[in-house]
C-alpha cells in the first residue's frame, strides 16, 4: 500500500513538472503548446547524449538537459510562435504551428535514434533501495520526487518574488500595458519559454532515468494528461496544475490497484472520470479564480 502511494506521488511529480511548464506558457501567452511533449522527449535524449557520448554523471546530465531544452524552448518560440505574434494571428494558429514543429522534431529524432526504446548506459544511474517499515522504496524515485518538488518551489519563488516573475505576470495580464510600463516583453517571453521548456526537459530526463527506456514518441501520452491537469487545476493556475497532477497520479495508481486486471482498459477512464467529477463540482477548476473563456 505504501509502495503504491509512493508510486502515485512519483508519477504525480513527473506529471506536475510536465504540466507546470505547459500551464506557464498557456497562462502567460494563451498558447496551447503542442510541442511541449517534444522538449520532454529531448530532455531525456540530451541526458542520454551527455551520459553515453560525453560521459557525464547523471546529476550533471540533468543540469545539461535543463539548459539545453530551455534554450531549445527559446528556439521553438522564435520559429513557431514569434512569426504569428508579429502577425497578430488568432491563438489557435499557434497551436497548429507548434503541432507542425513537433511532427518535424519527432520524425528527425526517429530517423536518428529509431522509433524503438533506448536505454541509458549500464551502471550510469544511481541505484539505492530505501527501507521504510515493510515497504521497499526505489531510492532513485525518491531523489526524483525531491528534485521535482524543489524545482516547483524554485519556480514559485521566481514567479512570485523576483523582478523577472513580476515582468512575466505583467505580460500575462496584458502585453501592451506591460510594454508601456517598461517591461522588456521580448525578454520576458524568452524567459517564459526557457523556464517552461527547461522544466519539461528535466521531467523527461527524470522519467527516462526512472524507467530506463526512452523513445522519440515518449512525450505524446503526456500531452493529454497535462491538458487535463491544467483544466482541472484551473486554466493557467500553476499551483492548480500541480495539484491536478498529483490527483491524476493518485487516481491512476488507485485504478491500477483497485480495478481487476480484466478491466485494465478502463484505468485511464477511471482516472479521467475522477478529474471530470472535480469539474462538475467546481467548474472553474480547483484553484482557478476567474471565469475561463477557453477550452
Amino acid at each position, binding site marked *: 500500500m505504501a509502495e503504491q502511494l509512493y508510486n502515485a506521488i512519483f508519477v504525480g511529480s513527473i506529471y506536475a513538472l510536465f504540466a507546470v511548464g505547459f500551464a506557464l506558457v498557456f497562462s502567460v501567452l494563451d498558447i496551447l503548446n503542442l510541442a511541449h511533449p517534444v522538449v520532454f522527449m529531448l530532455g531525456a535524449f540530451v541526458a542520454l547524449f551527455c551520459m553515453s557520448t560525453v560521459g557525464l554523471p547523471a546529476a550533471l546530465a540533468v543540469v545539461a538537459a535543463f539548459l539545453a531544452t530551455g534554450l531549445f524552448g527559446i528556439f521553438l518560440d522564435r520559429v513557431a510562435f514569434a512569426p504569428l505574434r508579429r502577425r497578430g494571428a488568432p491563438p489557435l494558429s499557434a497551436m497548429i504551428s507548434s503541432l507542425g514543429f513537433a*511532427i518535424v522534431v519527432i520524425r528527425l529524432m526517429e530517423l536518428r535514434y529509431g522509433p524503438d526504446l533506448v536505454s541509458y548506459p549500464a551502471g550510469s544511474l544511481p541505484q539505492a533501495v530505501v527501507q521504510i517499515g515493510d515497504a521497499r522504496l526505489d531510492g532513485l524515485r525518491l531523489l526524483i520526487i525531491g528534485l521535482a518538488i524543489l524545482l516547483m518551489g524554485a519556480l514559485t519563488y521566481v514567479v512570485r518574488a523576483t523582478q523577472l516573475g513580476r515582468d512575466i505576470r505583467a505580460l500575462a495580464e496584458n502585453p501592451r500595458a506591460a510594454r508601456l510600463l517598461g517591461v522588456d516583453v521580448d525578454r520576458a517571453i524568452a524567459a517564459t519559454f526557457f523556464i517552461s521548456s527547461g522544466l519539461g526537459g528535466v521531467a523527461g530526463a527524470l522519467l527516462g532515468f526512472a524507467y530506463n527506456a526512452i523513445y522519440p514518441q515518449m512525450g505524446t501520452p503526456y500531452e493529454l494528461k497535462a491538458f487535463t491537469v491544467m483544466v482541472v487545476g484551473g486554466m493557467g493556475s500553476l499551483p492548480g496544475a500541480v495539484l491536478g497532477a498529483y490527483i491524476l497520479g493518485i487516481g491512476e495508481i488507485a485504478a491500477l490497484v483497485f480495478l481487476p486486471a480484466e478491466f485494465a482498459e478502463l484505468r485511464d477512464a477511471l482516472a479521467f472520470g475522477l478529474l471530470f467529477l472535480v469539474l462538475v463540482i467546481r467548474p472553474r477548476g480547483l484553484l482557478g479564480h476567474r471565469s475561463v473563456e477557453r477550452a
Partner: protein
Amino acid sequence: MDAIAEFFRVYQTTIGVIGINALLALSVWVTLYAGQLTLGNAAFMAIGAYGSALLGMRLGVPFPLGLAVGALLSAVLALPLGFAVFRLRGVYLAIATIGFALGLNGIPPITELWQIYLSLAVVAYVLWRVQGSTAGRAWAAIREDEIAAASQGIAIRRYKLAAFVAGAAIAAWAGGLSAHLNFSIEPGDFGFTRAVQILVFAVVGGTPSVAGPIVGATLLTALPEILRPLKEYRDIFAGLILMLVIIYLPRGLVTLAELRKTRQLQEIGAADVA
C-alpha cells in the same frame, strides 16, 4: 477516360477519407463559427461509428437508417452536455478524453464514395445557407462579442447549443460512414489526436467560410499521398508545410484569395476603401 477510372481505383480509399475528413472539419466549423472551441467531436464521431456499426451487425438495421440513428443519438447526448458546457467549459475536454475501450472487427465495408460526397454536398449546402441566415449572423455576433450580442437580444444559449448539437450530429454521421469504409474500429481512433486533427483541418482551411474546412481537410489528407516519394522524410515535410501555411496564412488557406485582392487594392492605393 480510362486514366480517370484508374485514378479513382487506386486512390479510392484516400478519396473516401478526404470526404469524411471534410465532413468532420465541417462539424467542428459550426462551433468555431459560433466562437466555441470544442475537442468533443472525436467522441461524437465514435458514437456514430459504434452506433451505426452495431445496429447494422447485430440488428440488421439498413445502413442509412443506422447512420441516422447514430447521428440522432449523438445529438441527443450533445444536448445535456451542451447545457453543461455553458457552466462548465472543461466538459469539452472531458468528452474528448472519454475512452472507448472496445474495438470492433468485421464491419461490412459498404460505404460508397457517392454516399460520402452526397453527404458532404448536403451538409456544406445547408451550412452555407445557414451561414447567410439569421442563425449564421447570430453565431458571428456571438463569436465577435458575446456581451454585445446578448445586449442586442440574441438568445446566446440557444444559438450556441444549436451549433454544438449540429456539430455533434455531423461528426456522428461522418463516424458512421468512416466505420463502414474500413473493416474495423480501433479504440484509439477517437482520442485526443483525432480531436486535434479535426480542429487542424478546420483552422488551416480557414473558418470564415464553409469552403475553408473542406479545403483544409482535402489538402491535409492528400498531403501524405502527394509527399509519398519523399519516403522517410515525408512527415518532416508535412510538418514544415503545416507550419508554413499557418504562419503565412494564420486565418486559413481560404484567405489566400482575399490576401491577393487586398494586395492588388494596396497597389492602386484603394485598400482602405475596400
